[in-house]
């Protein structure tokens, strides 16, 4: 649990991350191509979830590079007071290109989803690809996911030609106690329609479970889903005093 204090409010946040190699990769002796980061950068809580595209030979390296790029981008971006989210996206794109060199960007294609919670309760979401973000507070409630006409594993990504407007972005002020989760498609695609907020609610008690026990238990619970992709999830909740 972490307290973040701005001039007017004290924000207390807690959460956890979970990542697990999917059935398909385990059977093939391959590592997970998901990479996650959950931590604090310059006073902001930062969630990064990247899912390397399985069809690309160096997707895992691409996802690693995307996490590094996102962290570097956020470090620069939060040093200014509420800059446009477009600047964050452009920084990530450019830094990722630098991070993957000398590899070919197309060999390293990866999705990238970043959530930044600043100490004044400002939330910024930037997502390229098929990660799903579920958010709930006293005024705002949304599921940000890929378009309904898409198919599984069919997604925009860093390293795949796209327009900047392929990034889904949200920027808003959190109101009251809030909770959010970010998931790769390995979990999100197997959530029953209409169940996202119920799952979000059920994740809260897991903040109190020890990391090792939580990982083993979540792994077992998520194993019942029909998918065989790598599975990653970050949960965060917060309240103001």
């Amino acid at each position, binding site marked *: 649990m972490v307290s973040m204090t701005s001039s007017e409010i004290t924000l207390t946040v807690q959460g956890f991350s979970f990542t697990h190699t999917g*059935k*398909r*990769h385990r059977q*093939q002796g*391959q590592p997970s191509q998901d990479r996650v980061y959950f931590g604090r950068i310059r006073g902001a809580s930062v969630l990064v979830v990247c899912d390397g595209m*399985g*069809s690309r030979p160096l997707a895992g390296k691409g996802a690693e590079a995307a996490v590094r790029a996102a962290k570097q981008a956020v470090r620069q971006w939060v040093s200014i007071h509420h800059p446009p989210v477009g600047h964050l996206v452009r920084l990530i794109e450019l830094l990722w290109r630098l991070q993957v060199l000398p590899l070919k960007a197309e060999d390293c294609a990866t999705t990238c989803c970043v959530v930044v919670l600043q100490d004044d309760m400002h939330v910024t979401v930037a997502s390229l690809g098929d990660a799903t973000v579920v958010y709930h507070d006293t005024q705002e409630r949304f599921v940000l996911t*890929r*378009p*309904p*006409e*898409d*198919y*599984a*594993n*069919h997604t925009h990504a860093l390293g795949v030609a796209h327009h900047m407007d392929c990034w889904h972005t949200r920027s808003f002020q959190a109101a009251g106690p809030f909770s959010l989760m970010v998931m790769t498609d390995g979990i999100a*695609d*197997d*959530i*029953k329609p209409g*169940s996202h907020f*119920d*799952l979000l609610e*059920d994740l809260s*008690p897991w903040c109190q479970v020890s990391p090792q026990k939580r990982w083993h238990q979540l792994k077992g*619970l*998520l194993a*019942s*889903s*029909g*998918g*065989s992709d790598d599975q990653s999830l970050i949960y965060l909740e917060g309240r103001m005093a």
Partner: protein
Amino acid sequence: MDFNRFLIQKPRPLPVIIIADTSGSMTESGKIAALNTALRDMLHAFREESGQHAEIHVAIISMGGPKASLPWLLQPAHELQYTDLTAAGHTPMGSAFRMLQRILEDPDLIPGRAYRPTLVLVSDGHPSYEDWEESLNHLLDSPRASKASRFALAVGEDADLDVLTRFAGAEQVRAAQDARQIRKFFRFVTMSVTARSRSATPNQSVTLPDLGEDDGFDDLE
């Protein structure tokens, strides 16, 4: 705590939709018999798949008569009870394209968690009605059809290659002059779909082989 109430526990669907010409001309030269044999072989192979990562679902749209019909709605291949298609009447391609689009855009039949569908158009002639072009344009403009894998097979000398090429693109159209080549085409479709169902990357695109070459498919009995 029980996550089962939140999670779908079935493998993700991998849809295969066959749009089969069953017009009267398919009775000539044993074409409909060859198509039935090829479809039976394909379904048999699909049933053998374990469905551990993806479950192959099949629908067959029949083009014979004044309107297309749907003898087999999209369903798991292992549940589909196939009976031979019979050939009679005209080739209502426009009606078939509209039916295909309705299936593709129905989230209950093809949810967002499904893998990219494979669409296979088989015809030995020309569309019988003028509505085919507008319906095909609508279909190809739709996001879901444009992202699907599309293959086409021209059966015999009289097939309208222009229509098939517009449906699938020149690279994904093949011509079959006899029953052997029809079976060969469907063996390729079968192999590409079953390989995808086992693959770590089920959305990888594949390219059709040349049906005239000896590529070993005939040995795969």
